[in-house]
């Protein structure tokens, strides 16, 4: 792979960019692979990359039913954070934050990691105390966090509603300074290019239709491009997990729900970091292009349609204007939906399965994008070593039997109540 550098840019500019090579190959599948990763999204691509890089599996394929990066890695609101209350979560995601910091250089691809801070607003003392519990948990694990008062918040977002007119006044907030955003497509493409460079076959438009299992061990997968032999299969198909699991006679503690997001027309810099509204589920950041990127609640019923309905957008934007009254005059440019693997305790599942050689990476709820690097790393470990990485031990499937749940919200199994 020709490295991207200032030199290569200038050189190519001078001959009108005729010599750039393909970012990744478009190979036909081989007969057999050491490991097959199903799903060419962020997590699948990252998993393959780390398998090749740290666990010296060389003969790896990624099977993507559509085009890589077409699922949630290309549909999310690009937020990066590790501001969780439970140790299992904040330690896991914090490892991810460390990886984000170096990812552009690691991949030689600018993923535009931008730590502009994430601020969770509180609208009562009780909520501020709940955030304090979360922030203290982070701090005791060495993760930076700060509790801000109303006036400190006002300095950061003066155009938020600090008037008498606010239905739920701002009391303060929890700030994670290194929280921020990254360019979602670049993450998928960067991992794809780097994985391809290490010999990983990225096979697009290749849908998996079934598995070959021989007395409890997986021996291959059946695909739209023929059968492929392998002893290790990793499922990285958030949004379709239950469908593939069914082919393995597995049901999972997961429901599929649609989550919508939207962007406004681009405007000059208004909001620097990421802000979440505590009296609802509105969150907002501004992209480098100037678009306000906004999201919030699930549509609230099982869905595999990558489309939602307007009342949810209305509900979310109502919260947005309650927080930032000036948003009212901006225009919504685009709305879209993605399918969330909503797990029954709101936390992910990274584990082995009852079938030898089949590994599971799912249940990311709305939180998958920020986990891309650490999910890839720990899942690669789980696949290569046939045992979980210390960071994903808590995310094993059996917690739904033992009761060691990781429920950040305390909402239990009503996954559709966000």
């Amino acid at each position: 792979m020709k490295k991207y550098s200032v030199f290569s840019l200038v050189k190519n500019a001078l001959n009108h960019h005729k010599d750039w090579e393909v970012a990744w190959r478009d190979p036909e599948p081989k007969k057999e692979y050491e490991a097959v990763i199903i799903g060419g999204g962020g997590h699948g691509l990252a998993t393959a990359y780390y398998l090749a890089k740290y666990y010296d599996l060389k003969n790896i394929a990624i099977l993507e039913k559509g085009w890589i990066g077409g699922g949630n890695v290309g549909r999310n609101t690009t937020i990066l954070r590790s501001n969780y209350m439970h140790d299992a979560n904040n330690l896991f995601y914090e490892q991810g934050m460390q990886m984000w910091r170096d990812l552009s250089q690691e991949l030689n691809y600018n993923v535009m990691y931008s730590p502009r801070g994430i601020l969770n607003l509180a609208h009562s003392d009780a909520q501020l105390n709940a955030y304090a519990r979360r922030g203290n948990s982070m701090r005791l694990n060495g993760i930076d966090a700060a509790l801000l008062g109303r006036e400190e918040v006002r300095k950061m977002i003066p155009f938020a509603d600090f008037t008498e007119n606010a239905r739920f006044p701002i009391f303060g907030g929890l700030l994670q300074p290194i929280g921020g955003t990254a360019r979602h497509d670049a993450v998928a493409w960067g991992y794809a290019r780097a994985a391809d460079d290490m010999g990983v076959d990225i096979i697009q438009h290749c849908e998996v239709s079934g598995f070959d299992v021989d007395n409890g061990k997986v021996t291959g997968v059946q695909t739209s491009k023929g059968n492929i032999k392998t002893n290790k299969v990793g499922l990285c198909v958030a949004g379709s997990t239950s469908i593939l699991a069914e082919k393995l006679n597995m049901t999972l503690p997961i429901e599929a729900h649609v989550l919508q997001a939207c962007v406004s027309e681009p405007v000059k810099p208004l909001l620097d970091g990421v802000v979440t509204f505590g009296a609802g589920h509105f969150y907002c950041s501004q992209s480098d292009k100037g678009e306000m990127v906004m999201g919030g609640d699930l549509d609230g019923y099982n869905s595999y349609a990558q489309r939602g309905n307007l009342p949810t957008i209305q509900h979310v934007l109502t919260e947005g204007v309650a927080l930032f009254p000036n948003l009212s005059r901006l225009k919504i440019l685009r709305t879209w939906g993605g399918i969330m693997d909503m797990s029954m305790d709101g936390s992910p599942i990274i584990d082995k399965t009852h079938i030898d050689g089949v590994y599971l990476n799912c249940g990311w709820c709305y939180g998958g994008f920020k986990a891309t690097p650490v999910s890839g790393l720990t899942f690669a470990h789980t696949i290569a070593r046939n045992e979980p990485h210390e960071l994903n031990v808590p995310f094993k499937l059996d917690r739904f039997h033992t009761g060691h749940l990781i429920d950040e919200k305390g909402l239990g199994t009503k996954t559709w109540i966000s």
Partner: protein
Amino acid sequence: MLEIKCPYCGNRSQNEFAYGGDATVKRPELNSEISDQDWDHFVYYRKNPRGNHLELWHHISGCRQWFKVLRNTATHDIIQTMEMKENP
């Protein structure tokens, strides 16, 4: 906004209803012996099909009745709605 035919009130817009999830999970009988696996499945495990899904809705801002809906999770088309005692 979905339009849901409440078996009692007729077609109403979604914002009168609350969702109730998978209608195929059946609560085990009280005071009965239940294996760990059966109980775990009742509490946590869902078929989560892509396609027709039998689910519960509650007409919470209407007649406050719970009822069943057979809905396609890929298209959101509603095939049938029925009272609790009925089946598709």
